[in-house]
Protein backbone atom coordinates (compact mmCIF):
# COMPACT_ATOMS: atom_id res chain seq x y z
CA UNK A 1 0.00 0.00 0.00
CA UNK A 2 1.22 3.49 -0.80
CA UNK A 3 1.61 5.58 2.31
CA UNK A 4 -1.25 7.89 3.14
CA UNK A 5 0.40 11.02 4.37
CA UNK A 6 -1.68 13.80 5.82
CA UNK A 7 0.83 16.33 4.65
CA UNK A 8 0.55 15.07 1.06
CA UNK A 9 -3.23 15.39 1.12
CA UNK A 10 -3.10 18.92 2.45
CA UNK A 11 -0.49 19.88 -0.14
CA UNK A 12 -2.66 18.44 -2.92
CA UNK A 13 -5.72 20.37 -1.70
CA UNK A 14 -3.73 23.59 -1.50
CA UNK A 15 -2.24 23.26 -4.98
CA UNK A 16 -5.52 22.22 -6.61
CA UNK A 17 -7.45 25.00 -4.91
CA UNK A 18 -4.83 27.48 -6.02
CA UNK A 19 -5.11 26.17 -9.59
CA UNK A 20 -8.90 26.46 -9.54
CA UNK A 21 -8.73 30.03 -8.24
CA UNK A 22 -6.11 31.16 -10.75
CA UNK A 23 -8.09 29.66 -13.64
CA UNK A 24 -11.36 31.20 -12.44
CA UNK A 25 -10.04 34.65 -11.57
CA UNK A 26 -10.04 36.22 -15.09
CA UNK A 27 -13.64 35.16 -15.65
CA UNK A 28 -14.72 36.32 -12.19
CA UNK A 29 -13.10 39.70 -12.81
CA UNK A 30 -14.86 39.99 -16.17
CA UNK A 31 -18.16 39.20 -14.48
CA UNK A 32 -17.54 41.80 -11.77
CA UNK A 33 -16.63 44.41 -14.39
CA UNK A 34 -19.82 43.66 -16.29
CA UNK A 35 -21.88 44.69 -13.25
CA UNK A 36 -20.39 48.15 -12.70
CA UNK A 37 -20.65 51.50 -14.43
CA UNK A 38 -17.95 52.83 -16.80
CA UNK A 39 -16.73 55.47 -14.35
CA UNK A 40 -15.78 52.89 -11.72
CA UNK A 41 -13.80 50.86 -14.27
CA UNK A 42 -12.05 53.75 -15.99
CA UNK A 43 -10.87 55.11 -12.64
CA UNK A 44 -9.05 51.85 -12.18
CA UNK A 45 -10.90 51.38 -8.87
CA UNK A 46 -12.83 48.22 -9.74
CA UNK A 47 -13.87 46.46 -6.50
CA UNK A 48 -13.76 42.68 -6.20
CA UNK A 49 -17.49 42.30 -5.62
CA UNK A 50 -20.35 42.58 -8.13
CA UNK A 51 -21.98 45.99 -8.52
CA UNK A 52 -25.55 47.19 -9.03
CA UNK A 53 -25.54 47.52 -12.84
CA UNK A 54 -25.95 43.85 -13.75
CA UNK A 55 -29.41 44.05 -15.31
CA UNK A 56 -28.82 47.37 -17.00
CA UNK A 57 -25.54 46.33 -18.68
CA UNK A 58 -26.73 42.94 -19.82
CA UNK A 59 -30.00 44.33 -21.12
CA UNK A 60 -28.09 46.91 -23.09
CA UNK A 61 -25.63 44.52 -24.78
CA UNK A 62 -28.22 41.88 -25.46
CA UNK A 63 -30.94 44.04 -26.96
CA UNK A 64 -29.50 47.42 -27.87
CA UNK A 65 -25.82 46.87 -28.68
CA UNK A 66 -22.86 49.05 -27.87
CA UNK A 67 -22.49 52.55 -29.18
CA UNK A 68 -19.62 52.92 -31.56
CA UNK A 69 -18.02 49.91 -33.16
CA UNK A 70 -20.64 47.18 -33.22
CA UNK A 71 -24.07 48.37 -34.06
CA UNK A 72 -25.80 45.03 -33.66
CA UNK A 73 -27.12 43.79 -30.32
CA UNK A 74 -25.31 40.79 -28.89
CA UNK A 75 -28.41 38.61 -29.06
CA UNK A 76 -28.11 38.73 -32.87
CA UNK A 77 -24.44 37.74 -32.66
CA UNK A 78 -25.26 34.90 -30.30
CA UNK A 79 -27.88 33.63 -32.70
CA UNK A 80 -25.31 33.72 -35.52
CA UNK A 81 -22.78 31.84 -33.39
CA UNK A 82 -25.40 29.29 -32.43
CA UNK A 83 -26.48 28.66 -36.03
CA UNK A 84 -22.87 28.40 -37.16
CA UNK A 85 -21.90 26.01 -34.35
CA UNK A 86 -24.96 23.82 -34.92
CA UNK A 87 -24.43 23.70 -38.67
CA UNK A 88 -20.79 22.72 -38.24
CA UNK A 89 -21.58 20.06 -35.64
CA UNK A 90 -24.60 18.54 -37.38
CA UNK A 91 -23.18 18.91 -40.89
CA UNK A 92 -19.94 17.24 -39.97
CA UNK A 93 -21.66 14.37 -38.17
CA UNK A 94 -24.04 13.83 -41.10
CA UNK A 95 -21.47 13.74 -43.89
CA UNK A 96 -18.89 11.77 -41.95
CA UNK A 97 -21.22 9.05 -40.65
CA UNK A 98 -22.41 8.41 -44.22
CA UNK A 99 -18.94 8.30 -45.72
CA UNK A 100 -17.64 6.07 -42.92
CA UNK A 101 -20.58 3.72 -43.50
CA UNK A 102 -19.71 3.48 -47.19
CA UNK A 103 -16.03 2.88 -46.48
CA UNK A 104 -16.60 0.20 -43.84
CA UNK A 105 -19.56 -1.71 -45.26
CA UNK A 106 -18.84 -1.67 -49.01
CA UNK A 107 -16.14 -2.82 -51.38
CA UNK A 108 -15.98 -0.69 -54.50
CA UNK A 109 -13.35 0.62 -56.91
CA UNK A 110 -11.31 3.53 -55.55
CA UNK A 111 -12.42 2.80 -51.99
CA UNK A 112 -8.89 3.17 -50.66
CA UNK A 113 -8.31 6.35 -52.66
CA UNK A 114 -11.53 7.85 -51.31
CA UNK A 115 -10.38 7.04 -47.81
CA UNK A 116 -7.01 8.69 -48.34
CA UNK A 117 -8.53 11.77 -50.00
CA UNK A 118 -10.51 12.32 -46.82
CA UNK A 119 -7.79 11.21 -44.45
CA UNK A 120 -5.16 13.69 -45.72
CA UNK A 121 -7.28 16.62 -44.52
CA UNK A 122 -6.95 15.40 -40.93
CA UNK A 123 -4.47 17.83 -39.50
CA UNK A 124 -4.50 20.72 -41.93
CA UNK A 125 -6.48 23.56 -40.41
CA UNK A 126 -8.27 26.17 -42.47
CA UNK A 127 -5.57 28.72 -41.64
CA UNK A 128 -3.05 27.25 -44.09
CA UNK A 129 -5.31 27.81 -47.08
CA UNK A 130 -7.15 30.83 -45.83
CA UNK A 131 -7.17 33.26 -48.77
CA UNK A 132 -7.81 30.71 -51.55
CA UNK A 133 -10.69 29.30 -49.47
CA UNK A 134 -11.99 32.83 -49.10
CA UNK A 135 -11.88 33.19 -52.87
CA UNK A 136 -13.78 29.93 -53.46
CA UNK A 137 -16.46 30.98 -51.01
CA UNK A 138 -16.66 34.44 -52.59
CA UNK A 139 -16.94 32.95 -56.09
CA UNK A 140 -19.77 30.73 -54.94
CA UNK A 141 -21.55 33.81 -53.62
CA UNK A 142 -21.46 32.52 -50.07
CA UNK A 143 -19.93 35.53 -48.28
CA UNK A 144 -22.10 36.66 -45.38
CA UNK A 145 -24.12 33.45 -45.40
CA UNK A 146 -24.38 30.65 -42.85
CA UNK A 147 -23.29 28.15 -45.49
CA UNK A 148 -20.12 30.13 -46.13
CA UNK A 149 -19.45 30.34 -42.41
CA UNK A 150 -19.75 26.63 -41.82
CA UNK A 151 -19.04 24.55 -44.95
CA UNK A 152 -15.26 25.09 -45.17
CA UNK A 153 -14.89 24.12 -41.52
CA UNK A 154 -16.75 20.86 -42.10
CA UNK A 155 -14.14 19.72 -44.62
CA UNK A 156 -11.98 17.62 -42.33
CA UNK A 157 -11.49 13.97 -41.59
CA UNK A 158 -11.82 13.73 -37.80
CA UNK A 159 -15.45 12.62 -37.85
CA UNK A 160 -15.00 10.06 -40.61
CA UNK A 161 -12.06 8.45 -38.82
CA UNK A 162 -13.92 8.36 -35.54
CA UNK A 163 -16.97 6.67 -37.05
CA UNK A 164 -14.83 4.29 -39.08
CA UNK A 165 -13.02 3.23 -35.93
CA UNK A 166 -16.31 2.72 -34.12
CA UNK A 167 -17.98 0.79 -36.96
CA UNK A 168 -15.05 -1.63 -36.99
CA UNK A 169 -15.95 -2.63 -33.44
CA UNK A 170 -19.55 -3.54 -34.36
CA UNK A 171 -19.59 -7.36 -34.55
CA UNK A 172 -20.03 -8.86 -38.02
CA UNK A 173 -22.70 -11.16 -36.63
CA UNK A 174 -25.08 -8.21 -36.31
CA UNK A 175 -24.94 -7.54 -40.03
CA UNK A 176 -25.23 -11.24 -40.86
CA UNK A 177 -28.29 -11.54 -38.62
CA UNK A 178 -29.90 -8.47 -40.17
CA UNK A 179 -29.25 -9.81 -43.63
CA UNK A 180 -30.96 -13.07 -42.74
CA UNK A 181 -33.91 -11.00 -41.53
CA UNK A 182 -33.93 -9.41 -44.97
CA UNK A 183 -32.65 -5.98 -43.96
CA UNK A 184 -31.06 -3.80 -46.62
CA UNK A 185 -28.30 -1.22 -46.11
CA UNK A 186 -30.78 1.50 -45.18
CA UNK A 187 -32.62 -0.58 -42.60
CA UNK A 188 -29.39 -1.88 -41.06
CA UNK A 189 -28.12 1.69 -40.78
CA UNK A 190 -31.25 3.05 -39.12
CA UNK A 191 -32.08 0.06 -36.91
CA UNK A 192 -28.63 -1.10 -35.84
CA UNK A 193 -25.76 1.25 -36.62
CA UNK A 194 -27.41 4.52 -35.62
CA UNK A 195 -28.64 3.39 -32.18
CA UNK A 196 -25.23 1.88 -31.41
CA UNK A 197 -23.50 5.10 -32.44
CA UNK A 198 -25.48 7.45 -30.20
CA UNK A 199 -22.71 8.11 -27.67
CA UNK A 200 -20.11 8.56 -30.38
CA UNK A 201 -22.39 11.02 -32.15
CA UNK A 202 -23.06 12.91 -28.91
CA UNK A 203 -19.37 13.09 -28.04
CA UNK A 204 -18.49 14.38 -31.50
CA UNK A 205 -21.34 16.87 -31.29
CA UNK A 206 -20.07 18.36 -28.04
CA UNK A 207 -16.54 18.82 -29.40
CA UNK A 208 -17.68 20.22 -32.74
CA UNK A 209 -20.13 22.59 -31.12
CA UNK A 210 -17.36 24.13 -29.02
CA UNK A 211 -15.05 24.22 -32.03
CA UNK A 212 -17.69 25.98 -34.15
CA UNK A 213 -18.76 28.48 -31.50
CA UNK A 214 -15.16 29.51 -30.86
CA UNK A 215 -14.09 30.05 -34.48
CA UNK A 216 -12.33 33.34 -35.06
CA UNK A 217 -10.22 33.83 -38.18
CA UNK A 218 -12.70 32.40 -40.65
CA UNK A 219 -15.76 34.41 -39.56
CA UNK A 220 -13.52 37.48 -39.29
CA UNK A 221 -12.68 37.17 -42.98
CA UNK A 222 -15.97 36.26 -44.55
CA UNK A 223 -18.50 38.34 -42.61
CA UNK A 224 -18.71 41.93 -43.71
CA UNK A 225 -22.27 42.69 -42.68
CA UNK A 226 -22.82 43.57 -39.05
CA UNK A 227 -25.86 41.35 -38.77
CA UNK A 228 -23.85 38.24 -39.73
CA UNK A 229 -21.18 38.75 -37.08
CA UNK A 230 -20.54 36.04 -34.52
CA UNK A 231 -20.13 36.94 -30.87
CA UNK A 232 -16.43 36.09 -30.75
CA UNK A 233 -15.79 38.58 -33.57
CA UNK A 234 -18.16 41.12 -32.06
CA UNK A 235 -16.35 41.22 -28.74
CA UNK A 236 -13.01 41.91 -30.39
CA UNK A 237 -14.51 44.85 -32.26
CA UNK A 238 -15.70 46.33 -28.97
CA UNK A 239 -12.14 46.66 -27.72
CA UNK A 240 -10.78 49.91 -29.07
CA UNK A 241 -7.07 50.58 -28.78
CA UNK A 242 -7.58 54.05 -27.37
CA UNK A 243 -8.83 52.91 -24.00
CA UNK A 244 -11.12 55.87 -23.43
CA UNK A 245 -13.44 54.66 -26.17
CA UNK A 246 -13.80 51.08 -24.99
CA UNK A 247 -16.95 50.49 -22.99
CA UNK A 248 -15.33 47.85 -20.83
CA UNK A 249 -18.41 47.00 -18.79
CA UNK A 250 -20.24 46.10 -22.01
CA UNK A 251 -17.26 44.31 -23.55
CA UNK A 252 -16.92 42.20 -20.41
CA UNK A 253 -20.64 41.41 -20.35
CA UNK A 254 -20.26 40.24 -23.96
CA UNK A 255 -17.23 38.15 -22.98
CA UNK A 256 -19.26 36.45 -20.26
CA UNK A 257 -22.09 35.79 -22.71
CA UNK A 258 -19.61 34.47 -25.29
CA UNK A 259 -18.00 31.96 -22.96
CA UNK A 260 -21.10 30.82 -21.12
CA UNK A 261 -22.65 28.46 -23.75
CA UNK A 262 -19.53 26.38 -24.52
CA UNK A 263 -18.49 26.28 -20.85
CA UNK A 264 -21.99 25.13 -19.91
CA UNK A 265 -21.75 22.38 -22.53
CA UNK A 266 -18.44 21.18 -21.07
CA UNK A 267 -19.62 21.23 -17.47
CA UNK A 268 -23.04 19.69 -18.08
CA UNK A 269 -21.88 17.06 -20.55
CA UNK A 270 -18.54 16.36 -18.97
CA UNK A 271 -18.41 12.66 -19.76
CA UNK A 272 -19.29 13.14 -23.41
CA UNK A 273 -16.89 16.06 -23.63
CA UNK A 274 -13.95 14.09 -22.26
CA UNK A 275 -14.75 11.18 -24.49
CA UNK A 276 -15.09 13.30 -27.60
CA UNK A 277 -11.87 15.13 -26.85
CA UNK A 278 -9.83 12.01 -26.25
CA UNK A 279 -11.21 10.13 -29.24
CA UNK A 280 -11.02 12.84 -31.87
CA UNK A 281 -7.40 13.68 -31.08
CA UNK A 282 -5.71 10.64 -32.47
Amino acid at each position, binding site marked *: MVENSRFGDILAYVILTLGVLVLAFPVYLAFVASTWDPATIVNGQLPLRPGPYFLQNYYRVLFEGTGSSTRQPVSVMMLNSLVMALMIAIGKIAISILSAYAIVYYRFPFRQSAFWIIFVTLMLPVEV*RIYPTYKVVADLGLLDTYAGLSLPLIASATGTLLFRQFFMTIPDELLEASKIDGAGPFKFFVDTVLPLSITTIAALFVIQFIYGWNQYLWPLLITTKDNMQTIVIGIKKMIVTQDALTEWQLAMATAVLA*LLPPVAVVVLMQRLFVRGL*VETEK
Partner: protein
Amino acid sequence: MEKRAIFGGQTLPYLLLAPQLIVTVLFFYWPASQAVWQSFLIQDAFGTSTEFVWFENYQSLFANREYYNAMGTTALFSILVAGFSLSIALLLAVMADRQMRGAMSYRTLLIWPYAVAPAVAGVLWLFMFQPSLGMVSRGLRGMGVDWNPLLKGGHAMTLVVMAAVWKQISYNFLFFLAGLAAIPRSVIEAAAIDGARPWRRFWTIIFPLLSPTTFFLLVVNITYVFFETFGIIDAVTGGGPAKATETMVYKVFSDGRLGGDLGGSAAQSVVLLLIVIALTAIQFRYIERKVTY
Protein backbone atom coordinates in the same frame (compact mmCIF):
# COMPACT_ATOMS: atom_id res chain seq x y z
CA MET B 1 -8.49 -4.33 -40.66
CA GLU B 2 -11.41 -5.21 -42.90
CA LYS B 3 -14.97 -6.31 -42.33
CA ARG B 4 -15.97 -9.81 -43.42
CA ALA B 5 -19.68 -9.07 -43.66
CA ILE B 6 -20.45 -6.37 -46.20
CA PHE B 7 -23.16 -5.19 -48.54
CA GLY B 8 -23.08 -5.70 -52.28
CA GLY B 9 -23.85 -2.83 -54.61
CA GLN B 10 -21.72 -0.33 -56.46
CA THR B 11 -23.70 2.90 -56.75
CA LEU B 12 -24.89 3.45 -53.21
CA PRO B 13 -21.43 3.75 -51.63
CA TYR B 14 -20.54 6.55 -54.05
CA LEU B 15 -23.75 8.37 -53.16
CA LEU B 16 -22.94 8.01 -49.47
CA LEU B 17 -19.44 9.33 -50.00
CA ALA B 18 -20.49 12.15 -52.30
CA PRO B 19 -21.34 14.86 -49.74
CA GLN B 20 -18.04 14.53 -47.92
CA LEU B 21 -16.00 14.26 -51.10
CA ILE B 22 -17.66 17.31 -52.63
CA VAL B 23 -17.10 19.43 -49.52
CA THR B 24 -13.53 18.21 -49.19
CA VAL B 25 -12.61 18.84 -52.81
CA LEU B 26 -14.36 22.19 -52.99
CA PHE B 27 -13.18 23.65 -49.71
CA PHE B 28 -9.97 21.78 -49.14
CA TYR B 29 -8.20 20.45 -52.23
CA TRP B 30 -9.17 23.21 -54.60
CA PRO B 31 -8.09 26.06 -52.23
CA ALA B 32 -4.98 24.17 -51.12
CA SER B 33 -3.86 23.67 -54.72
CA GLN B 34 -4.66 27.31 -55.41
CA ALA B 35 -2.39 28.27 -52.53
CA VAL B 36 0.43 26.23 -54.04
CA TRP B 37 -0.21 27.65 -57.51
CA GLN B 38 -0.45 31.22 -56.23
CA SER B 39 2.85 30.87 -54.42
CA PHE B 40 4.53 30.70 -57.86
CA LEU B 41 2.83 33.86 -59.12
CA ILE B 42 3.46 37.55 -58.69
CA GLN B 43 0.61 39.95 -59.17
CA ASP B 44 1.23 43.56 -60.11
CA ALA B 45 0.06 46.34 -57.81
CA PHE B 46 -3.27 46.83 -59.57
CA GLY B 47 -4.15 43.16 -59.73
CA THR B 48 -4.47 43.36 -63.51
CA SER B 49 -1.72 40.96 -64.59
CA THR B 50 0.03 38.01 -63.01
CA GLU B 51 3.35 36.48 -63.89
CA PHE B 52 4.65 32.99 -63.26
CA VAL B 53 7.91 33.40 -61.37
CA TRP B 54 8.87 29.92 -60.17
CA PHE B 55 10.36 30.15 -56.69
CA GLU B 56 10.83 33.90 -56.55
CA ASN B 57 8.22 34.30 -53.82
CA TYR B 58 10.01 31.70 -51.73
CA GLN B 59 13.38 33.26 -52.38
CA SER B 60 12.24 36.69 -51.29
CA LEU B 61 10.50 35.08 -48.31
CA PHE B 62 13.68 33.43 -47.10
CA ALA B 63 15.73 36.52 -47.86
CA ASN B 64 13.42 38.58 -45.70
CA ARG B 65 14.54 39.33 -42.16
CA GLU B 66 10.94 39.83 -41.06
CA TYR B 67 10.11 36.24 -41.89
CA TYR B 68 12.88 34.98 -39.67
CA ASN B 69 11.57 37.26 -36.96
CA ALA B 70 8.13 35.69 -37.30
CA MET B 71 9.72 32.22 -37.18
CA GLY B 72 11.66 33.17 -34.06
CA THR B 73 8.56 34.61 -32.43
CA THR B 74 6.61 31.45 -33.24
CA ALA B 75 9.38 29.25 -31.83
CA LEU B 76 9.69 31.28 -28.63
CA PHE B 77 5.92 31.40 -28.24
CA SER B 78 5.65 27.60 -28.75
CA ILE B 79 8.39 26.83 -26.23
CA LEU B 80 6.95 29.13 -23.58
CA VAL B 81 3.33 28.04 -23.99
CA ALA B 82 4.10 24.32 -24.25
CA GLY B 83 6.61 24.48 -21.38
CA PHE B 84 4.40 26.34 -18.93
CA SER B 85 1.08 24.72 -19.78
CA LEU B 86 2.53 21.19 -19.75
CA SER B 87 4.34 21.57 -16.43
CA ILE B 88 1.46 23.30 -14.64
CA ALA B 89 -1.00 20.74 -16.02
CA LEU B 90 1.24 17.86 -14.94
CA LEU B 91 1.51 19.24 -11.42
CA LEU B 92 -2.27 19.62 -11.17
CA ALA B 93 -2.90 16.18 -12.67
CA VAL B 94 -0.52 14.45 -10.24
CA MET B 95 -2.30 16.18 -7.36
CA ALA B 96 -5.77 15.32 -8.67
CA ASP B 97 -4.74 11.69 -9.24
CA ARG B 98 -4.55 11.06 -5.47
CA GLN B 99 -7.35 9.06 -3.99
CA MET B 100 -9.01 11.74 -1.94
CA ARG B 101 -12.36 13.31 -1.36
CA GLY B 102 -13.50 15.81 -3.97
CA ALA B 103 -11.09 14.73 -6.70
CA MET B 104 -13.91 14.64 -9.24
CA SER B 105 -15.14 18.14 -8.44
CA TYR B 106 -11.62 19.46 -8.85
CA ARG B 107 -11.55 17.90 -12.30
CA THR B 108 -14.71 19.77 -13.30
CA LEU B 109 -13.35 23.01 -11.89
CA LEU B 110 -10.12 22.66 -13.85
CA ILE B 111 -11.29 21.63 -17.32
CA TRP B 112 -13.79 24.34 -18.31
CA PRO B 113 -11.29 26.93 -19.69
CA TYR B 114 -10.87 24.59 -22.68
CA ALA B 115 -14.28 25.78 -23.85
CA VAL B 116 -13.39 29.48 -23.83
CA ALA B 117 -12.66 30.88 -27.30
CA PRO B 118 -9.02 31.96 -27.74
CA ALA B 119 -10.07 35.49 -28.68
CA VAL B 120 -12.27 35.73 -25.57
CA ALA B 121 -9.45 34.40 -23.40
CA GLY B 122 -7.25 37.11 -24.90
CA VAL B 123 -9.80 39.79 -24.06
CA LEU B 124 -10.10 38.57 -20.45
CA TRP B 125 -6.35 38.81 -19.93
CA LEU B 126 -6.14 42.12 -21.76
CA PHE B 127 -8.64 43.55 -19.31
CA MET B 128 -6.61 42.46 -16.28
CA PHE B 129 -3.38 43.79 -17.74
CA GLN B 130 -4.69 46.88 -19.52
CA PRO B 131 -2.04 49.53 -18.71
CA SER B 132 -4.27 52.28 -17.34
CA LEU B 133 -7.19 50.50 -15.72
CA GLY B 134 -6.22 46.84 -15.43
CA MET B 135 -6.31 45.42 -11.93
CA VAL B 136 -3.02 43.54 -12.21
CA SER B 137 -1.13 46.31 -13.99
CA ARG B 138 -2.06 48.67 -11.16
CA GLY B 139 -0.50 46.22 -8.74
CA LEU B 140 2.57 45.96 -10.95
CA ARG B 141 2.90 49.72 -11.06
CA GLY B 142 2.65 49.74 -7.29
CA MET B 143 5.68 47.44 -7.25
CA GLY B 144 7.57 49.83 -9.52
CA VAL B 145 7.16 47.91 -12.80
CA ASP B 146 6.40 50.17 -15.74
CA TRP B 147 3.96 47.73 -17.32
CA ASN B 148 2.80 48.57 -20.83
CA PRO B 149 2.07 45.76 -23.32
CA LEU B 150 0.93 48.34 -25.88
CA LEU B 151 4.45 49.73 -26.15
CA LYS B 152 6.83 47.03 -24.96
CA GLY B 153 7.28 43.89 -27.02
CA GLY B 154 8.35 41.76 -24.06
CA HIS B 155 5.29 42.72 -22.07
CA ALA B 156 3.00 42.02 -25.01
CA MET B 157 4.59 38.60 -25.45
CA THR B 158 4.18 37.84 -21.74
CA LEU B 159 0.51 38.75 -21.98
CA VAL B 160 -0.29 36.53 -24.99
CA VAL B 161 1.70 33.66 -23.46
CA MET B 162 -0.27 33.91 -20.22
CA ALA B 163 -3.61 33.91 -22.04
CA ALA B 164 -2.57 30.97 -24.24
CA VAL B 165 -1.27 28.97 -21.27
CA TRP B 166 -4.40 29.70 -19.25
CA LYS B 167 -6.53 28.22 -22.01
CA GLN B 168 -4.33 25.21 -22.74
CA ILE B 169 -3.83 23.94 -19.17
CA SER B 170 -7.20 22.15 -19.06
CA TYR B 171 -6.54 20.18 -22.22
CA ASN B 172 -3.13 18.99 -21.03
CA PHE B 173 -4.53 18.31 -17.57
CA LEU B 174 -7.17 15.94 -18.96
CA PHE B 175 -4.69 13.95 -21.02
CA PHE B 176 -2.17 13.75 -18.19
CA LEU B 177 -4.93 12.55 -15.88
CA ALA B 178 -5.82 9.80 -18.35
CA GLY B 179 -2.14 8.89 -18.69
CA LEU B 180 -1.74 8.68 -14.92
CA ALA B 181 -4.83 6.50 -14.58
CA ALA B 182 -3.30 4.04 -17.07
CA ILE B 183 -0.19 3.46 -14.94
CA PRO B 184 -0.65 0.19 -13.04
CA ARG B 185 -1.12 0.80 -9.34
CA SER B 186 1.00 -2.26 -8.53
CA VAL B 187 4.16 -0.75 -10.03
CA ILE B 188 3.86 2.29 -7.80
CA GLU B 189 3.05 0.16 -4.76
CA ALA B 190 6.08 -2.05 -5.40
CA ALA B 191 8.29 1.03 -5.45
CA ALA B 192 6.67 2.28 -2.25
CA ILE B 193 7.40 -1.05 -0.54
CA ASP B 194 11.00 -0.75 -1.68
CA GLY B 195 11.08 2.50 0.24
CA ALA B 196 10.89 5.05 -2.59
CA ARG B 197 9.35 8.30 -1.38
CA PRO B 198 6.73 10.13 -3.49
CA TRP B 199 9.26 12.52 -5.07
CA ARG B 200 11.54 9.69 -6.14
CA ARG B 201 8.62 7.54 -7.33
CA PHE B 202 7.48 10.40 -9.53
CA TRP B 203 10.82 10.87 -11.28
CA THR B 204 11.86 7.24 -11.63
CA ILE B 205 8.50 5.60 -12.42
CA ILE B 206 5.58 7.91 -13.13
CA PHE B 207 7.33 10.48 -15.28
CA PRO B 208 9.03 7.94 -17.61
CA LEU B 209 5.78 5.96 -17.98
CA LEU B 210 3.99 9.17 -18.89
CA SER B 211 6.39 9.97 -21.72
CA PRO B 212 4.06 8.82 -24.55
CA THR B 213 1.38 11.18 -23.24
CA THR B 214 3.89 13.99 -22.86
CA PHE B 215 5.19 13.52 -26.38
CA PHE B 216 1.70 13.45 -27.85
CA LEU B 217 0.79 16.61 -25.93
CA LEU B 218 3.97 18.34 -27.06
CA VAL B 219 3.02 17.91 -30.73
CA VAL B 220 -0.60 18.92 -30.11
CA ASN B 221 0.51 21.97 -28.13
CA ILE B 222 2.80 23.10 -30.92
CA THR B 223 -0.05 22.82 -33.42
CA TYR B 224 -2.22 24.74 -30.95
CA VAL B 225 0.30 27.55 -30.70
CA PHE B 226 0.70 27.68 -34.47
CA PHE B 227 -2.95 27.98 -35.36
CA GLU B 228 -5.42 28.44 -32.56
CA THR B 229 -3.60 31.25 -30.80
CA PHE B 230 -4.35 33.47 -33.78
CA GLY B 231 -7.46 34.72 -31.99
CA ILE B 232 -5.52 35.58 -28.84
CA ILE B 233 -2.88 37.53 -30.75
CA ASP B 234 -5.34 39.38 -32.91
CA ALA B 235 -7.52 40.36 -29.95
CA VAL B 236 -4.71 41.31 -27.57
CA THR B 237 -1.87 42.81 -29.60
CA GLY B 238 -2.69 42.67 -33.30
CA GLY B 239 0.82 41.32 -33.82
CA GLY B 240 2.40 44.39 -32.27
CA PRO B 241 4.01 46.36 -30.85
CA ALA B 242 6.50 46.58 -33.73
CA LYS B 243 5.66 42.97 -34.77
CA ALA B 244 6.91 41.60 -31.46
CA THR B 245 4.03 39.11 -31.30
CA GLU B 246 3.66 38.38 -35.01
CA THR B 247 3.63 34.62 -35.46
CA MET B 248 3.87 32.84 -38.82
CA VAL B 249 0.11 32.37 -39.14
CA TYR B 250 -0.46 35.97 -38.19
CA LYS B 251 1.94 37.04 -40.94
CA VAL B 252 0.08 34.94 -43.54
CA PHE B 253 -3.04 36.80 -42.51
CA SER B 254 -1.61 40.30 -42.40
CA ASP B 255 0.48 40.03 -45.60
CA GLY B 256 -2.46 38.84 -47.66
CA ARG B 257 -5.02 41.18 -46.12
CA LEU B 258 -6.90 43.43 -48.57
CA GLY B 259 -5.30 41.60 -51.48
CA GLY B 260 -1.85 42.77 -50.42
CA ASP B 261 1.01 40.39 -51.14
CA LEU B 262 -1.02 37.34 -52.15
CA GLY B 263 1.89 35.45 -53.69
CA GLY B 264 4.06 35.95 -50.61
CA SER B 265 1.18 35.07 -48.33
CA ALA B 266 0.54 31.89 -50.34
CA ALA B 267 4.22 30.92 -50.17
CA GLN B 268 4.03 31.30 -46.39
CA SER B 269 0.90 29.13 -46.35
CA VAL B 270 2.79 26.41 -48.21
CA VAL B 271 5.67 26.56 -45.72
CA LEU B 272 3.16 26.21 -42.88
CA LEU B 273 1.51 23.33 -44.69
CA LEU B 274 4.83 21.51 -44.87
CA ILE B 275 5.48 22.09 -41.17
CA VAL B 276 2.08 20.66 -40.23
CA ILE B 277 2.62 17.64 -42.49
CA ALA B 278 6.00 17.05 -40.84
CA LEU B 279 4.47 17.27 -37.38
CA THR B 280 1.70 14.86 -38.37
CA ALA B 281 4.20 12.41 -39.79
CA ILE B 282 6.27 12.50 -36.58
CA GLN B 283 3.12 11.95 -34.57
CA PHE B 284 2.02 8.95 -36.64
CA ARG B 285 5.41 7.33 -36.69
CA TYR B 286 5.49 7.62 -32.97
CA ILE B 287 2.01 6.22 -32.44
CA GLU B 288 2.83 3.26 -34.68
CA ARG B 289 5.94 2.52 -32.66
CA LYS B 290 3.90 2.68 -29.48
CA VAL B 291 1.48 0.10 -30.85
CA THR B 292 4.18 -2.46 -31.65
CA TYR B 293 5.75 -2.21 -28.22
